[in-house]
Structures are given as structure tokens and as C-alpha cells.
């Protein structure tokens, strides 16, 4: 549906307009991630970094839902926005989001669709690697941070996965149709 160009000469003008009007769907995954980055700047003033990495979860989920619409370069650009929004060194989330998107894409291309419990475990691994990577890359950027407080974020990120997957599923069904059933 997305990405396939319809036989243009067989479309009448109304159908062509409909085709062009449907193009906003290409931006849906990126918009979801941007919205979640914005949510992550919410004024929740707690002493430890407890807010889940919603943007990472959303990228993970969109790479498996719509691999064509969440390529690693797009994850990179979204990561740059996240870096600006969270006052991190430019390139931190960009590198990690792109790495996450690339690795998940590779895994899904090799092994196909997996049941949700398996994906949840996969999220746990990706999030752990993300926090470790962030710890190392912050040191690379010359702003070393202590590792233990990042454990809080790891826990909340893993716990928030079902919520984000439900959200992305709603968005997916609304914008791309009902999926396999029906």
C-alpha cells in the first residue's frame, strides 16, 4: 500500500487526489516519535531519571510495524531532535537510535514476526544496551555520568513497553488499516 506507486495512467483525477492526500501517512511513525519526545520533557520533577525512554520504544515498535517508514537515517534525525530537547551532547541519542533501528531491522528481516512476549524480552535487551551505550557515549562526549541512576530509566522503559505498543497499534490501525484480521 505504501511505497508502491499505483499504475498512474489507470487512475482518474479523483483517485490521484486521493493518492496524494494519503501521503501524510508516510510521516505517521516519525510524528509519533516526535510526540513522545515532547511528552518526555514533561514537568515531572523527580530526583532520579525515572521517565521511560518512550522514543526508543516507539522506534523499536515502528521498525517492526512499518520497517519502510522507520529507516535508520530517520531514527538518526529523530535522535538529533531528542538530543536538542534533552540538552544532551548532539549525536548521543542520534547514534543510539540509529543503531537500535538498524539492529532491530536486521533481526526482523532475518527472523520475521515474533510473539509479543519475545519482543518484550528483545526490548529489555535493546534498552539495556541503550543505557550502557549512553553511559559510554557520554564519556566519549566528555561528560561522564554515573551508571547506577540509569537503572531506574531502564526499569521504567521495560515496564512502559506494553503501553507504547498499544498506542502505536492504535495509530497503526487508524492510519494504515486493520492489519491481518478482517
Amino acid at each position, binding site marked *: 500500500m505504501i511505497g508502491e506507486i499505483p499504475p498512474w495512467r489507470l487512475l482518474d483525477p479523483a483517485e490521484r487526489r486521493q493518492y496524494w492526500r494519503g501521503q501524510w501517512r508516510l510521516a505517521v511513525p516519525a510524528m509519533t516519535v516526535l510526540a513522545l519526545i515532547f511528552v518526555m520533557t*514533561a514537568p515531572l*520533577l523527580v530526583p532520579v531519571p525515572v521517565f521511560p525512554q518512550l522514543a526508543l520504544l516507539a522506534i523499536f515498535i515502528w521498525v517492526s510495524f512499518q520497517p519502510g517508514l522507520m529507516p535508520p537515517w530517520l531514527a538518526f534525525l529523530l535522535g538529533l531532535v531528542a538530543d536538542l530537547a534533552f540538552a544532551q551532547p548532539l549525536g548521543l541519542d542520534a547514534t543510539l537510535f540509529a543503531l537500535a533501528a538498524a539492529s532491530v531491522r536486521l533481526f526482523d528481516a532475518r527472523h520475521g514476526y515474533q510473539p509479543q512476549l519475545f519482543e518484550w524480552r528483545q526490548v529489555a535487551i535493546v534498552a539495556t544496551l541503550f543505557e550502557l551505550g549512553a553511559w559510554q*557515549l557520554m564519556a566519549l562526549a566528555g561528560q561522564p555520568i554515573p551508571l547506577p541512576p540509569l537503572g531506574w530509566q531502564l526499569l521504567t522503559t521495560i515496564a512502559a513497553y506494553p503501553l507504547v505498543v498499544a498506542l502505536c497499534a492504535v495509530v497503526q490501525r487508524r492510519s494504515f488499516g486493520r492489519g491481518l484480521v478482517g
Partner: protein
Amino acid sequence: MDWTPGNRRSSAMRREQNLALIGAVVTGAVIAAGLIMLLFARVNPDGAARLRGVMIDLLTPVWSVVRAPFDGIGRAVALGSDYIGAVSRAERLEADLAAARAELQRAAADRLALAQLRRIAAVREPGRRLIVTARIVSATSGSMARTALVAAGAGSGVAPNLPVIGADGLIGRTVEVGRWSARVLLLTDPASRIPVTIVRTGQAALAVGTNGPRLELRDRVGPDLPLQAGDRLVTSGDGGVFPPGIPVGTIVTAAEPARIRAAATPVGAAYVRIEAAWLPLPVTPEPTLPENTTPVPAEARRSGARAPAATPATPIAR
């Protein structure tokens, strides 16, 4: 079928392979670019200041409108913790009050003596200057940096590296500035280092953020006195950003490294003062080089050579 479909499949496959190859190359390039950007950030941490300013200008207005529910949550939590243990706290406060009254009388006498001494010694101190009072709008609690957004920016005279002071004590310093908003590096950020004095012992030290709820006390110098839980810390004025005497926190664990509970939290609808830097770094004029008075030989002058530009053989030590 009047054409042969055989060739089509292989060309489609080739196209797919090419696309996959391009994708892999782009991915690799993008990741390499990210790492290079991190290295740039290491060399130049203040890069992309304009972009960051635009970003916080986008974020701040929205959260300054949508913040009501979050304020409510914060106040409810504070209210609940107020009720728990109210009696024991009242008893403790009464005891503190008695001690404080005696302390206050001594302090009044000291203040008088200090004013006289200052007059005698003609001490001149830079004054504190308020730039703007603003409200804390938002904070990142899910990332590597502990910062808050303040609804006042370059339009109100805010610049990077200014002290941000709350009602109860120090909040942090400004790091990024947009047109209508600024970002404050909180005390709890791992990059935050506050020069402090321990009030009881007079030792100087650094209060360092840990990305957790408590700060750490490091690099303590001064009289060899052990710390006690409950020792108060105030800013020392070293470094020229924070004015001296602003409460920073209280020591909760005296074991090395000592743990500090911050005096002020940015929780709730907190208004903060953004002040001018206490003692901004003086603008050093470019050193003027001594004039080169080496005589030019007569032969050279005749052939049109001018006196050489003033270039000292050795760099001038500052």
C-alpha cells in the same frame, strides 16, 4: 504471454540487493556521523547554541500552559508527606527554634561588629543584581542531563552561566538560552559543580551532582575537622558565578564521600531569581606587543624594504 518474464525477476532481485546495499551504507554513514558529532561535542560543548535556543523556545510555551496537572500532582505529594510525621517534626522544630533564637542574638552582635570592621577596612564587595524572576516550567527527568526550563530568555537579559536561585536556596545555573526561555542545569546533574563552604567548619569543597537525589561533597580542603550529619553548606563565591552565602544543602551522611540533600528543589510552581554572575571574568584586553625597533639596514631601505611588523620572538607570558 507475449513477453518473457524470466529476466524481470532477476532484475527485481538485483534492484532489491542494490537497495539493501545502499541502505547498509547509509546506515553506517549515519552512525559514523553520530560518533563524529559526539567528538565535536567533546571539543566544543557549547555548539549548536542557536538550535538549542530554538528548541527550548518551542518546548517552554506549551508546558507553561499544560503544567497544571503536574503542579497538582507535585502539591498532592508534598501535602501527603507533610501530614506524615507532623507531630515529631513539630517537636523537632520547637527544639530547633530555641537553639536558633540564641544563635540569632549572637548573629546580630556579629553583624554589627562585621559592619564596623568592613567600614574600618574599607572593604568593597560586588553587589548582587537581579536580572529577572521567572517560573520553572519543565524538567527532563528521563535523560542523561538534569535540567529545567525557565520561562525567561535572552529577551529578558538572560545569558548562559548565570546563577539561578530559588526561595530556599540554589537551584543551578543557566546553560542554554532561547529568545523567551532558558535551560537551567540543576544541582543534581552530573556536570554540575558548586563551590561551597561548610558553615560549621569553614572548609571549602565542591558539591557535585550524581544524577540521583543526593549530591556528593568532593575535594574538601581547609581545617582538618570531621563532618557531621546536619552540617549546612552555602556557596563560597569561588569561581565568580554564584554569589556567596546562598544555601546549597545539608549533609545527610558524613561518610566519605559525604552525601548532601539539596536545600531547594524545583518541584511545584517554583519561582526563581536569575541574577547577574557574581564576579564575571574580567575582559582581558589583547596584550599590546612592544614595537620592533630593530634598525633596517641602509641597503635594504634603499631597495624599498620597510621596517618589519612587530612580531616578538617569544610569546608574551600572561
